[in-house]
């Protein structure tokens, strides 16, 4: 694949369809700049700022946009609220749609057949693969991203974090908790 990809890059550059520096910039952006830390900031703000939280669930695109995040795979964003009674999970059974703008590029498991095939039919079984168990009567809502809407889960705020600043809370928000395959870390997990 290395040879084939390099060959294609050579051809396209020689034809003037692409500029090498643009390729490098794209790679750099998604490897280093755009990632789950964006979404973690959204969540930390939602945990501490009730007005932002309300706005976030009413108009995800605008609220998240106000923090400077949006654009590619983030033009139409919806935030999903986890509560003690409702747990949300996000999947794209048909391909790999994922909120790049707030989470970066998806992990391999999200794009692979086991997750795509089983999450809509057996979400609890999939959560077991992540070592996550929910109470028997928790409602699980699975969101299959079939259009250009991109979903992110706002996990519940862990106990023992009263008075924490947003910067400190950001450290508790994991990528998996924003997909719905995990929870936010608790303070003792940080130590």
């Amino acid at each position, binding site marked *: 694949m290395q040879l084939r990809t390099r060959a294609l890059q050579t051809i396209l550059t020689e034809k003037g369809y692409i500029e090498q520096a643009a390729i490098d910039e794209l790679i750099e952006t998604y490897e280093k700049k755009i990632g789950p830390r964006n979404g973690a900031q959204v969540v930390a703000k939602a945990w501490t700022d009730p007005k932002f939280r309300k706005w976030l669930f009413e108009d995800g695109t605008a609220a998240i946009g106000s923090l400077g995040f949006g654009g*590619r795979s983030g033009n139409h964003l919806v935030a999903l609220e986890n509560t003690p009674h409702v747990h949300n999970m996000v999947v794209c059974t048909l*391909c790999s749609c994922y909120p790049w703008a707030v989470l970066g590029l998806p992990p391999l498991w999200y794009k692979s*057949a086991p997750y795509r095939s089983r999450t809509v039919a057996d979400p609890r079984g999939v959560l077991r693969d992540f070592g996550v168990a929910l109470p028997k009567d928790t409602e699980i809502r699975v969101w299959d991203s079939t259009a250009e809407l991109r979903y992110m889960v706002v996990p519940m705020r862990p106990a023992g974090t009263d008075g924490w600043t947003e910067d400190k809370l950001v450290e508790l928000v994991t990528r998996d908790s924003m997909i719905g395959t995990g929870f936010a870390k608790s303070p003792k997990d940080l130590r």
Partner: protein
Amino acid sequence: MNGPQDLGGMDGFGPVEPEPNEPVFHDDWEKRAFALTLAMGMPGGWNIDQSRFARENRSPAEYWSMSYYQIWFAALERMLKERALITDDEVVAGHSLHKPKPVPRVLSPGDVLKVLHRGGPTERPTNTKPAFKPGNAVRAKNINPPTHTRLPRYVRGHVGTVDRVIGFHVFPDSNATGAGENPQWLYTVRFEGRELWGPDGDPTSQVSVDAWESYLTPAD
């Protein structure tokens, strides 16, 4: 198409296997395959629905045994060849052999962040009104188009509830065939787990999809 990408509800793929500390890209070539695909969007002149169809439109033997970025790469190659932007002999040679075709625009490095930030919004203006409102019971149609659709097989024929009216959006089934954007009203429709999977389905689960108006009929 009822292709190998329509995976919802299929068995046999085994457990989900998260990789600890997974890198964004597993290989240098993956980075290139990703970036080349994005960078060629403008000069290539294809839309995202066409690129999704190019990925899914292959045999299950290929699709289920290729890695994620192998599929991206194969689709990119196919779209480039379909539009005569590259040729088979050039791919073999690893070099440009023929005069390049004129293209509308090329992505310059300075424009990358701006273009990413603009993204690809799909909402379009309209004077029409949505046929459904939140709370309506709707049935997903039993459509089986041979070309691109975003109505997965596992919901077809089933009854759900309109959760939200999203807006008026580009219709992929049309856009992917080059027949134009033909936007329609788009809804989030929620289905009970047992409606989808029968009495053995998880009674605590619900699944929603985002469905265009022509995917739906009223249910009584």
